[in-house]
């Protein structure tokens, strides 16, 4: 099963890289950008076919390693693959 994990900074956590991107966009002439926050996407393929079990394992992975839950949020998306339809 394929999964996509989004890791983003919690609101209120300083994101100077996001700010730098915002300024760079402004310098390029894109004046309408009010806010930029930069996160991470981690794509995984796991040997699990049951969506609930997959989600549980991925949650554990996020809690233990993929995200630092002191400063980051995470969102897990199970992706459609040859194994079956998209799972919400």
């Amino acid at each position, binding site marked *: 099963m394929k999964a996509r994990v989004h890791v983003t900074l919690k609101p209120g956590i*300083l994101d*100077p890289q996001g700010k730098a991107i915002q300024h760079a966009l402004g310098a390029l002439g894109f004046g309408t950008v009010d806010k930029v926050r930069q996160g991470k996407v981690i794509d995984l393929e796991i040997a699990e076919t049951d969506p609930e079990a997959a989600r549980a394992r991925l949650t554990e992975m996020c809690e233990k390693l993929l995200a630092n839950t002191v400063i980051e949020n995470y969102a897990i998306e199970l992706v459609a693959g040859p194994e079956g339809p998209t799972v919400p």
Partner: protein
Amino acid sequence: MKAAIIVFPGSNCDRDVQVALRRSMQAAPGAGKAGGGAPIMVWHKDADFEKVDLIVLPGGFSYGDYLRCGAMAAHSPAMTEVVRRAKAGVPVLGICNGFQMLTETGLLPGALLRNARLKFVCRDVHVRVETSQSLFTGRYQAGTALRIPIAHHDGNYVAGADQLERMAARGQIAFRYCEPDGAITEAANPNGAARNVAGVFNEAKTVLGMMPHFERLADPALGGIDGRPLFDGLVEALS
């Protein structure tokens, strides 16, 4: 005193700490043949290292800072053992990348973010000793301003507002960036850290995490010895 320094792939300040500790051990009264020997270097895969009085997590770029600084190192076999021993009261000193590992394992509260102004900062700064009531800072006087080098990209310490209040009340803040005269100002803060925090203890004050490299200013040949009393104090407290 017996000490162990954990070495991860990418650690680069391990030998500096070994030298600093060894110098303090050799200079201590009654040193020499009696007890200890040079600090041992423990490879990160080794969860079975001998009993020691002090564990040091050195600076560097363990695992290339991949994912997050210290995140992967936090799951090394040696670190699992370090966490176990720390919970049993064994003193642990984390310097720079080591501080990051300590927050990643939850042995210390808070987290270290990318420096606020985005630059890797590599220069001498001043830090104020906030308390002498610990086995790490026993040889300093509270309120003293020290000149110590820093070299980091991710030293912006954050913790919840309530948590910081509690930490301050409990004397868990060890060092704060300051002016040469000890004043705590925004200008003296090299990375945006909350309350200019440069180093923190756990509640029991047996674990210290700090960004500045005290081991880099513990020898006159290096241009100063402001960092030396930290190691002298540890040797005195743990021998």
